[in-house]
């Protein structure tokens, strides 16, 4: 009963139990953070409109993204995955979400930012519904913890419109 193997096993088991418990507590402590993130997105301009061969519309745009997501960071936060998605409805689809831009924020100091950017990913519709289309831009964030439960939330900014005519 008191062999080396038995004792090594007991120590290992105890260490792992404590470690697991500490991870659980660290993850649980995230629940006491009540963040108040803010963000604003402006569209600077539409740079182009393309009709792809099989009929899908594609739009290119430039936007200004201003955000303060510092309050999302806790001691258990490894990174923040932030992305901007265009969300709109078409006769065929009740929901379209197209990611336009994303970023990984590793430190609290970088979570307050301003950026002017073109869409990083292509804004292509499933069909040809983008002329004069009303759409929302939504800033989503996914909090990835050092350990434990992941959190996600978003800010919806509505009232954007793709013009009918393009140069």
């Amino acid at each position, binding site marked *: 009963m008191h062999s080396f193997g038995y004792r090594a096993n007991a120590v290992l088991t105890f260490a792992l139990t404590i470690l697991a418990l500490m991870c659980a507590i660290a993850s649980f402590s995230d629940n006491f953070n009540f963040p108040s993130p803010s963000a604003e997105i402006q569209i600077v301009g539409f740079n182009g409109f393309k009709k792809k061969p099989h009929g899908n519309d594609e739009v290119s745009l430039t936007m200004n993204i201003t955000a303060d997501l510092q309050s999302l960071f806790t001691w258990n936060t490894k990174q923040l995955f932030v992305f901007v998605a265009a969300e709109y409805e078409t006769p*065929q689809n009740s929901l379209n979400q197209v990611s336009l831009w994303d970023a990984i924020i590793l430190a609290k100091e970088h979570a307050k930012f301003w950026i002017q950017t073109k869409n990083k990913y292509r804004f292509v519709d499933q069909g040809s519904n983008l002329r004069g289309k009303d759409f929302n831009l939504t800033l989503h964030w996914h909090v990835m913890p050092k350990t434990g439960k992941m959190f996600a939330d978003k800010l919806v900014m509505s009232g954007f419109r793709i013009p009918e005519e393009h140069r």
Partner: protein
Amino acid sequence: MGWIAEHVESIKSMKIRDTLSQLITLGMIVSTALIIWKALMCLTGSESPVVVVLSGSMEPGFKRGDILFLHMSEAPFRAGEIVVYNVEGKPIPIVHRVIEVHEQENSGKVDMLTKGDANHADDRSLYAYGQNWLKPQQIMGRAVGFVPYAGWVTIIMTEKPIIKYMLVGALDSAGETYLLF
């Protein structure tokens, strides 16, 4: 001569008892692991509730050897969620993020596009030949929780089977253990 036979008898019975108790302990370990696994399957609704990350395509969020807890619910899939999906003809499931969703209301048809956070291009080239969109039927679950490094045990055991046998041997001799994989 009588007392020798007695001793031999007792030694023989001891050995059988030891072996039996070791076998039972091993059986307990295996069945406890199975019970926990099956219970997690019921609770999470996912056929593989715990998966190990094998590639670095989601770095720095998930690294090789991290463990993900999956959940499968009726809730519709949305952009930003990290899902684990199967591709027809590929044995290993992929953990990537949904970046596009096109959902039809009437038919319930959902088209999705995924991408690894650390990859430059989206996943179209990973899908089966001629497949442009990921379907909900391919998804095994969405990642809801995360534990770093814990999956290394599994990776090492899969890639160096000898360690698995050594570990089973160690469990056997140590008697009781609470280590479950």
